[in-house]
């Protein structure tokens, strides 16, 4: 997790939050609002979807915080809810994973050193939803392929192949391809 997002006095805050104290619940929200939104925004296609995921996540946190037993970190628990909500949103929207079609409609935005190159933000944005979700959950959030497969309702092989495909594309779009003899 990002160490910057730490809930201070977590035991006291948790105890009050479990009792339904709105101020304590707001402390939890303030502590994790940005990483939750960031995760949602990286996975979902639109700002509106990410905002919905943010709301859904914290509504669920407020509703279920009594069930958090403190086995793992609070952030880990909140993040699993956020990831689940974001992936649910992807499934609901049924965005197409038609990479080739996407590539037709998305053109590289920057020209560097005479070649076509995107910045990482744009390249990530351009990835199909599923690939992007796998890259983000695996490479940034640190989920294992087993965990990702479980959350997505797919196989471990699917998660692995999505990650490899995503990196192949990112490499190309970022202009990192180098001929290997």
């Amino acid at each position: 997790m990002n160490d910057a997002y730490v809930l201070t006095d977590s035991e006291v805050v948790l105890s009050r939050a479990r009792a339904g104290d709105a101020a304590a619940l707001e402390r939890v929200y303030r502590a994790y609002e940005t990483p939750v939104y960031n995760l949602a925004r990286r996975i979902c296609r639109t700002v509106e979807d990410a905002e919905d995921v943010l709301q859904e996540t914290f509504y669920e946190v407020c509703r279920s915080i009594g069930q958090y037993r403190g086995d793992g970190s609070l952030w880990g628990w909140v993040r699993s809810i956020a990831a689940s909500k974001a992936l649910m949103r992807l499934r609901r929207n049924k965005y197409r994973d038609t990479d080739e079609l996407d590539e037709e409609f998305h053109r590289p935005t920057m020209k560097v050193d005479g070649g076509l190159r995107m910045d990482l933000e744009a390249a990530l944005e351009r990835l199909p939803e599923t690939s992007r979700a796998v890259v983000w959950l695996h490479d940034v959030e640190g989920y294992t392929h087993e965990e990702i497969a479980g959350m997505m309702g797919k196989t471990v092989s699917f998660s692995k192949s999505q990650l490899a495909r995503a990196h192949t594309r990112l490499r190309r779009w970022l202009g990192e391809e180098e001929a290997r003899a």
Partner: protein
Amino acid sequence: MSHLSMDQLVALREPGAEPGTATAREHLAGCAACQAELQRLDQRVARLKALPALRPARDQWAAVNSRAAAARRVRRLRWAAVGGLAAAAALTLVVLQRRTETAQVTTAVAIDDVMARSNQLERVLEAYNPDARVTDGVTARVAGELEDRIAVLDRQLNTVQMLDARTRDAALLRLWQERVGLLDALVDVHLTRASNVGF
């Protein structure tokens, strides 16, 4: 061997040894191009992690809190409804208990009355002292039958003590009433015979 595929490079970054990892590592050790590719992959992941956090444009707490508060209110109302039902059930139980208690008091009073009546009849019989009197066969037979039934009732009165309070009181009242009826009949039998024979 050809260069490592992206699948293999990605697999090399995984903790633990996967099938084919050893071969891939062997190739990697002697291939500068694949080493550079793996390094680029590591750097790409590092850059992904270093991307600035995207922040929500709007504060969503008010909406979250309002929705959560509404849900809490609904939950409280549900619990209150459950509590209300429980309270109503408890009240009904109290009323029933009071009624039962009242009924039990009424039964106890009735038992006292009927026992008093039974004692009164016993005293009448005792005063008449039928054992000391000469009786005809019919009277003796009827009186004997009545005394047998009274004896059965007395045994029942003893066993009924083992029942729970509510059942016991009702049974006691019924048995004592029956006993009084039999005693009444017994007194009648003796007194009628006495009257018939001119005592």
